[in-house]
């Protein structure tokens, strides 16, 4: 065992366990086995911090770390962000109930796992073994670290030749490399050969993944269903099954599949985020809410932290926020506003995000019936939008909705006008634009055109005909504008031409407005004015 002494003595080691006794016991055990430099972390956040600041040769983590992230997530994130190298050895300590989740991880499996409770003899034996195996795989892992994927494959073949006992372990790396190179056919052949010998769970998932990428969804689904029957806790299978449902546009099935997976393993951030997004699209806000809530909590200190989690969480809470101010609504609005605040603080340097957060803040207040607060937030959002260099169509659309919620119809209409001229809207945005336009009722537009009409009359009466005409044009641009507005517009234009001089363009504009009015009946209160204006128009026409 002196060999293990020597190896461990040179290593930088991190031990992760949530229980204080287990942590110190593990450190002591490692010291007895010959380690010199052992850091200990109590949870995922602390571990991430340590991993970020140091370069470890060996990490030993308990799978179950209490309330935060679990050991598998620490491993996945650290490998995903390349904070730990492929040459770093990761040993997971597990209870038997977590084995399927750990063993089946297709991309980021631990190098070894030890079942609790274990004695020092067991640990000695296992560490000696795995460090020895890892040493043999060193060349391959170094190529992986240098991202020289093409070199990995021949190295794998050479090592299988030399160490046939390590065949399965090496083939697992090979399969992963083929997939990274997008050589799915080669990967599929490899997995199928492995499966002829034995139904290894990761080879089953590998096969299904290849079939999925080769777009044979039926075959992939069949493999996955079989695998889930045999290994009900193998959650990665549910993730892939969900992708198949999404490809087939079966959103409800996708949601149900992910729900099953989150019941088995609730702490995977990416899965919770995906579930939240799908449930939100399905308008299943209760599911979306709990998924995003979990995502916010789990990702707070991880590489997967994203503003979307906060904002979508706040959005998914809106369905329960009402002016009735019941318990649900109070709790919901508090949570929503808290999420919005947290997003604004965390992403204060990103004006786009602050804008989006402020939009949701305004909506929350609107739903609560707090009109003044909603309007204040809307105004903050409006000035943020002005600061943004090239606001996206989606941003403008969300601003339009907030204008409407806060009864600022004129502003909403203006912005809708701008949006209508944009050529870069996505299909979804165009749909949303049409929907918003349709949602604006005729009455609302009438109210709006009347609002402008009143302002225009003010200008007209003060003799500011230019301004009056500009506003009347705006009002009559809506087909919903009433006859009074049209008559007023005609009157302003004729007055203008009488004062200055008639122009062909304006005469034509008046003609168009006249034809919109048609023939007013004598009973109409505007009949006399209309008749006079028609005569004036004829006169102006003759003079040009």
């Amino acid at each position, binding site marked *: 065992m002196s060999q293990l002494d020597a190896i461990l003595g040179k290593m930088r080691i991190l031990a992760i366990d949530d229980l204080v006794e287990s942590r110190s016991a593990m450190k*002591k055990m490692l010291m007895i086995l010959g380690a010199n430099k052992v850091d200990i972390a109590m949870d995922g956040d602390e571990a991430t911090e340590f991993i970020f600041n140091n370069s470890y040769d060996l990490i030993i983590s308990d799978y179950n770390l209490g309330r935060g992230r679990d050991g598998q997530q620490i491993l996945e994130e650290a490998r995903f962000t390349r904070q730990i190298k492929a040459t770093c050895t990761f040993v997971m300590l597990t209870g038997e109930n977590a084995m399927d989740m750990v063993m089946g991880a297709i991309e980021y499996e631990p190098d070894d796992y030890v079942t609790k*409770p274990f004695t020092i003899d067991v640990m000695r*034996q296992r560490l000696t*073994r795995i460090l020895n195996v890892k040493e043999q795989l060193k060349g391959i892992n170094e190529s992986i670290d240098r991202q020289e994927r093409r070199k990995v494959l021949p190295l794998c073949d050479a090592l299988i030749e030399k160490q046939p006992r390590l065949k399965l372990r090496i083939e697992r790396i090979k399969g992963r490399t083929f997939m990274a190179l997008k050589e799915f056919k080669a990967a599929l052949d490899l997995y199928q050969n492995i499966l002829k010998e034995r139904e290894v769970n990761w080879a089953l998932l590998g096969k299904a993944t290849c079939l999925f990428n080769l777009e044979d969804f039926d075959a992939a689904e069949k493999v996955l269903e079989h695998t889930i029957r045999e290994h009900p806790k193998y959650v990665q299978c549910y993730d892939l099954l969900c992708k198949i449902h999404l490809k087939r546009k079966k959103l409800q099935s996708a949601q149900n599949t992910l729900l099953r997976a989150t019941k088995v393993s609730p702490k995977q951030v990416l899965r919770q985020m995906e579930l939240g997004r799908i449930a939100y699209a399905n308008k299943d806000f209760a599911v979306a809410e709990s998924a995003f809530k979990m995502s916010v909590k789990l990702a707070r200190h991880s590489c997967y932290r994203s503003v979307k989690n906060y904002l979508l969480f706040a959005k998914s809470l809106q369905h329960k926020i009402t002016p009735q101010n019941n318990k649900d609504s109070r709790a919901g609005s508090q949570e929503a506003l808290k999420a919005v605040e947290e997003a604004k603080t965390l992403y204060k340097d990103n004006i786009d995000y602050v804008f989006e957060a402020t939009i949701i803040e305004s909506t929350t207040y609107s739903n609560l019936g707090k009109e003044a607060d909603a309007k204040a937030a809307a105004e903050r959002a409006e000035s943020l939008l002005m600061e943004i260099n090239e606001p996206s169509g989606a941003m403008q659309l969300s601003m339009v909705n907030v204008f409407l919620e806060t009864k600022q119809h004129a502003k909403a209409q203006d912005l809708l006008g701008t949006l209508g001229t944009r050529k870069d809207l996505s299909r979804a945005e165009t749909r949303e634009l049409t929907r918003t336009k349709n949602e604006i009722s005729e009455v609302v537009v009438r109210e709006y055109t009347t609002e402008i009409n009143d302002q225009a009359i003010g200008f007209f009466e003060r003799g500011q005909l230019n301004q009056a005409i500009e506003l009347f044009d705006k009002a009559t641009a809506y087909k919903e504008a009433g006859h009074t507005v049209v008559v007023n517009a005609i009157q302003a234009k004729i007055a203008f031409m009488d004062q200055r001089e008639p122009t062909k363009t304006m005469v034509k504009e008046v003609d168009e407005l006249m034809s919109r009015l048609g023939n007013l009946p004598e009973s109409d209160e505007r009949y006399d004015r209309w008749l006079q204006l028609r005569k004036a128009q004829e006169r102006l026409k003759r003079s040009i």
Partner: protein
Amino acid sequence: MAFDYNTLLSAELHDIKNQMQALLSAQEDLNEVLKDKEQYQSYIANVNQHSQLLNHKLLEILSILKIQNQAFTPCEDEHWLLDTLSPIIHEFTQLHGMRITHHIDKDFNGFYDEQLLEIALHNSFMNAKQIGASQLQVSVQEFSDGHWLIDIQDDGPGFKDKQLYEDTFTIQGTKNGLGLYLIQQALMAHKRNGNTGSIHIKNNPTQGACVQLIFP
């Protein structure tokens, strides 16, 4: 909502496992501190023996629960046999005074549920010890169709005829019955290409019993 005993039991067992782990560590500390004090060694050995047994019993409970659970699937994976076997050999030689020899390549690895194999090996060794054996010989045989077995021979009085002709082992009867039953269950949980693991027992031509743990 129905009361979920399984969740409760799992939570309790999880706590017990953690306590067991802490106890084993505390014991390691004690061993370390007292390693030069000859006068305490017999006490330490005694404590070690009982805690090892307790640890083993805990694993056994976990395995029984596992096997009993309808939704149970074994966690078969690649393991190195000596990694699994060595701590058990260590326990039986150090704490129970048995002589154990093996002819197993240090690089031999197989596909099995490690916890279940531990139970099977531990029970096989314990059966031999309880029946009066003092020496064990362990070896491995591999076959071209991929199946393999662990062969355990002892120098005890061997199985009684009645036991040899029974098709299956039941949990009724003696302590030995439970041991063989558990071993059988542990092996039957292993499956490959439609075949299932099994246990085969026989008596050696000259002396002692032979237990074969057969993996599909």
